[in-house]
C-alpha cells in the first residue's frame, strides 16, 4: 500500500512537471504589452478571436526580431492612452509622433507616414475638400491627432469642430447629415469605408503628413524597449519587411516619407 502511494505521488509529480514545462518555456520569452482598440481597422481589429491589422503585423514583426512575444491589451482609445500613462501597457500602434507627445513619451523611429483626409456622406455633393469646409461642422475622434492637423490647415478658425468618442457614432452622424464631415487618417477612412460598406466617401487631397512611431514611457524599461525596437525597425526597413506589410494592407508603400504635398489651404 505504502509503495502504491509512493508510486502515485511520484507519478503525479512527473505529470505536474510535464504540465509545467510548456508554460515555463513560453514564459522564457519576455512580454511586450501593446494596447489596441477592438475597432481600429485597418490598424488593429479582432477577427475570430485574433488581433489583426497593419500595425499588428508591424508589431509582430518587431517582436519577432527582438525575441519578445506580444500581449494585446484591448480597450477604447482613451483607455489605451490611460494604460500607456500608468505603464499597464508598453506601447501602442498608430500613435502619431508629435512635439507635444514627445514631452511625455520617447518615440521609436517612424514605421509609417500618415496623412489626414476628410470623409463626407455619399450624398453630399457640396464638399469637395478643405476649401469647402468654411462654416461647416467636422467631427474628430477624441484623442486622435487629426483634429489638430485640421486646425493647422484652418488658420482663421472657420471650421467648427465636434469631438466624439467612438468612430461608429461619427460614421452614423456624418452619414445621417448631422455632421458635415469627419477628419481622420486617410488609410483609416478608406479601410473602414470599404470594410464596413459605409455610406461615406473621402473627398479632397490628403493633408498634414505626420510620422507615426511607437511611443515608450520615459523610464528604464521604456528606454530599453525603445532601443531594441529602433534596431528592429531599421532592420525591417532595410530588408523590405515594412514595405511589404504596407503594400499588403494599403497597396502602396507608406513606410517612406511622401514627397511633401501642400494642398490648397481652405
Amino acid at each position, binding site marked *: 500500500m505504502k509503495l502504491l502511494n509512493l508510486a502515485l505521488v511520484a507519478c503525479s509529480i512527473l505529470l505536474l512537471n510535464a504540465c509545467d514545462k510548456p508554460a515555463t518555456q513560453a514564459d522564457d520569452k519576455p512580454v511586450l504589452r501593446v494596447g489596441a482598440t477592438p475597432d481600429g481597422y485597418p490598424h488593429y481589429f479582432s477577427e475570430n478571436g485574433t488581433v489583426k491589422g497593419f500595425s499588428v503585423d508591424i508589431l509582430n514583426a518587431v517582436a519577432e526580431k527582438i525575441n519578445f512575444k506580444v500581449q494585446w491589451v484591448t480597450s477604447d482609445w*482613451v483607455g489605451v*492612452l*490611460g494604460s500607456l*500613462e*500608468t505603464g499597464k501597457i508598453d506601447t501602442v500602434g498608430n500613435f502619431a509622433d508629435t512635439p*507635444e*507627445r514627445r514631452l*511625455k*513619451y520617447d518615440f521609436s523611429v517612424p514605421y509609417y507616414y500618415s496623412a489626414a483626409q476628410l470623409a463626407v456622406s455619399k450624398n453630399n455633393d457640396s464638399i469637395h475638400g478643405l476649401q469647402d469646409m468654411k462654416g461647416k461642422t467636422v*467631427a474628430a475622434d*477624441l*484623442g486622435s491627432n487629426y483634429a489638430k492637423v485640421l486646425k493647422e490647415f484652418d488658420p482663421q478658425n472657420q471650421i467648427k469642430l*465636434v*469631438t*466624439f*468618442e*467612438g468612430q461608429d*457614432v*461619427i460614421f*452614423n*452622424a456624418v452619414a*445621417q*447629415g*448631422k*455632421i458635415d464631415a469627419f477628419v481622420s487618417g486617410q488609410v483609416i477612412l478608406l479601410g473602414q469605408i470599404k470594410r464596413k460598406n459605409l455610406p461615406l466617401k473621402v473627398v479632397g487631397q490628403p493633408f498634414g503628413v505626420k510620422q507615426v512611431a511607437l511611443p515608450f514611457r520615459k523610464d528604464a524599461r521604456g528606454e530599453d524597449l525603445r532601443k531594441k525596437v529602433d534596431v528592429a525597425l531599421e532592420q525591417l526597413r532595410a530588408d523590405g519587411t515594412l514595405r511589404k506589410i504596407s503594400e499588403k494592407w494599403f497597396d502602396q508603400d507608406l513606410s517612406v516619407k511622401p514627397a511633401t504635398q501642400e494642398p490648397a489651404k481652405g
Partner: protein
Amino acid sequence: MNFDFAYMLSIIPQILSYLPITLLISVLSILLATVLGIVFALLLRAGKIPAAFAHLYISFFRGTPVLVQLLIIYFGLPQIFPALNSMSAINAVILGLSLNTSAYLAEIFRAAIDSVDKGQLEASLASGLNLFQASWRILFPQACRNAIPATGNVYIGLIKNSSLAFTLGVSELLAAGKLAATESLKYFEAYFAVGLIYWALTIILSELQRRLEKAINKPYIN
C-alpha cells in the same frame, strides 16, 4: 506616479466653462422627467390598458442601458421617422435622460401615493372637500414628503448620466476633462478635477433636498 496637483487645479476653470451645458441638460431633464413620472404614476392607477402601457414603458426604460436608449433616440429613430433627423444632439440627450429617469420616478411616485393612508382621503371627502381639493391639499403634500428622499437619489443619478451626452458629440463636463486629458496626457489629474466638480454639484443638490425636506416636515414637528 507623480500626481500633478497644480495642473489639476489649473484646469478646473477650463472644465467649469462646460458647467452650463451640464446644468442645462440636468435641469431640463429633471423637470421633464418629473412631469412624465407623475403622468406614468397616475397611468398605473388608471385602469387596465393605461396601466399595461405604463408597465411596458417602465420595464423598457429601466431594463435597458441609458446609453443604448440615447443611441436609439439619436441615431435609430431617425432611420424610421426621417423627420426626427432634425433633432439636435442636446435635445436627444435631454429627451433620452427624461424618458429614462421618468420610469424610475413613476415607481417612486406610485409608492409614495400608496403610502398615504386611505383614511386620509375618506376623512377629507367626509369633511366636504371635493376629490381634486382632497388630492391637492391633503394627499399630495403627504405623498411628496414620502417621495423626496428617493427622488433626490434619482436626480443625482441623472446629473451623472448627463456625461453620456459626450457619446453623441455634446461637449459637457466629462468631455472637457477627457479633452484636457488627451491634450496634456495627464489623465488622472483631469478626471480628478471632473470628479470634484460633480461631487460639488451633488453636495449642492443634497443640501437643497435637505432644506426642502425640512420645510415639508414642519407640520409634523411638535
